[in-house]
């Protein structure tokens, strides 16, 4: 029933166009036959997609980024969800300080964090290890996981949880079967943002990545050191294509709206 009016749809259309326009342009450039950035005015070419194959380190870096993003955002969630629940529900001393501390990675320029972490991990003997990279990423994506879970958990109807407790659910069961499903939209959105943030970070990772653990953004950054060429755009286009395919598959087999909105949420 509650449909969007024409004004809303116009707004939405413009919004979406503005959001995708720069990306679309980038994807278009990926098909240029030229050796430099230009829109494919005279013919499309897959040249720059084929070029990716000449750079196995790109493909390796893609996997590193993927693993790093998935792992660090997952670990961040493990820490962030309980913390978000505590902050959403309790009014305790030190709450504001904690909230500020947990958000602080957002507020420090990543160069500074990168160098601080490099110094720290070097003196801890972890310099250049994949573990160090993961820990650092957990820290920088933590605020996203926290804040979005927090947004979903504040003002949640507590009587539903009471009902579960009265039926004999222990703390863990309560969390897993009732609380988590109810805050799932927030948790999933938080995970998505955390993942993307980790996947996209360059300024900090440049300092921590060692040979073999270079992420895709680092690889791309190094590649375009002396020269930007359409390879950047074709790699970007591939990342988008891969993500979209993954999500479309997810949608096919599981239903994206269920992932994003939680089950049983599609009522009137």
């Amino acid at each position, binding site marked *: 029933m509650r449909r969007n009016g024409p004004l809303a749809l116009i707004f939405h259309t413009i919004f979406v166009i503005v959001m995708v326009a720069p990306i679309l342009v980038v994807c278009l450039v990926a098909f240029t036959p030229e050796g430099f*950035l230009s829109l494919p005015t005279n013919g499309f070419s897959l040249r720059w997609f084929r070029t990716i194959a000449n750079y196995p380190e790109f493909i390796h870096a893609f996997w590193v980024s993927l693993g790093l993003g998935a792992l660090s955002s997952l670990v961040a969630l493990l820490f962030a969800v309980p913390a978000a629940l505590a902050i959403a529900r309790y009014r305790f001393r030190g709450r504001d300080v904690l909230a500020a501390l947990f958000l602080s990675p957002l507020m420090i320029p990543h160069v500074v964090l990168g*160098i601080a972490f490099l110094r720290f991990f070097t*003196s801890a003997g972890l*310099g250049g290890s994949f573990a160090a990279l993961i820990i650092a990423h957990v820290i920088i994506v933590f605020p996203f996981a926290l804040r979005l879970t927090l947004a979903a958990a504040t003002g949640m109807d507590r009587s539903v949880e009471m009902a579960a407790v009265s039926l004999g659910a222990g703390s863990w069961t309560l969390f897993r079967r009732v609380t988590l499903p109810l805050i799932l939209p927030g948790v999933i959105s938080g995970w998505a943002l955390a993942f993307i943030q980790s996947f996209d970070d360059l300024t900090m990772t440049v300092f921590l990545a*060692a*040979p073999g653990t270079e992420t895709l953004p680092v690889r791309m950054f190094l590649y375009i050191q*002396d*020269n*930007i060429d359409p390879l950047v755009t074709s790699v970007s286009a591939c990342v988008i294509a891969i993500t979209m395919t993954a999500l479309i598959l997810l949608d096919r087999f599981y239903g994206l709206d269920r992932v994003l909105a939680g089950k049983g949420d599609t009522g009137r």
Partner: protein
Amino acid sequence: QQKTLYVAGYGGSFEKTIRDEVIPAFEKENGVKVEYVAGNSTDTLAKLQAQKGNQQIDVAIVDDGPMYQAIQLGFCGKLDGLPTDLYDTARFKDDRAVAIGIVATGLMYNTKMFKEKGWAPPTSWNDLKDTKYAKQLVIPPINNTYGLEALVMLSKMNGGGETNVDSGFKIFKEQINPNVLAYEPSPGKMTELFQSGQAVIAVWGTGRVQSFANTGFPVDFVYPKEGAATLLTTACPINKPNASPLAASFVKMLLDPKIQLVMLKDYGYGPVLKSLVIPPELGKMAPIGERAAKLYNPDWTVINEKREEWTKRWNREVER
């Protein structure tokens, strides 16, 4: 015996060349594994400072500006037994580093655009002041050697020099600034500004222009009539306890005539060896032979004294 040698240097095609042409041979010869830590000069220098006292890197390849800093900060070890036929400019005090390539700083312009607009190619540093280039000029900033040398050259042409850059600052501030689209240190970004048509003329080095032109993009390099300035790509072994002698060997391998020719071909690096015979088809832009002889070599001892002060002044007066 150390098992892994960490070499930090530029990424991109430079990395590819080193990986393909230098590392395999070096590994075979010395029975050691070489890990290439890619990053631009400033990243590498920052890593050196962060890991001070606990250095992981064995060899650093950076631009000359950062190299002077590295030497001053004591990051560089000593090089013994450098080839005797090095150009003087390629040598550093106490042999704490060595240049592996010579680049000339001059002007780059978009040939196609110039032709379309009917403009004559630039010939002089003074062309930077030409108002027709409004918002289409790119100059690397002062913490980048290209920018610094542009400042020095303009001071020198106007009665100053390394010891007095007031005139240069004045010209930059009043006459060049309005033309400048961006003070851009990143080579990648520089090429992008040209490719997207936003910039048509820039202060840059032969090496960069050469590899840019190699992609098929219509750009050319100009040696200004007042002279181009010398810029060096340098390498040094890192100073650390129990430093491996292989570090110095690696640096010296970069001076191998064969490698020098490869770098001339790929990047337009002028060789640092006087005795090297250059095939005529190579080095259309690179500072070799006569062009190399006419280069202006800035007085780095003076510049380094003043550099911090100039940077501050530049940030506040020019880049604002």
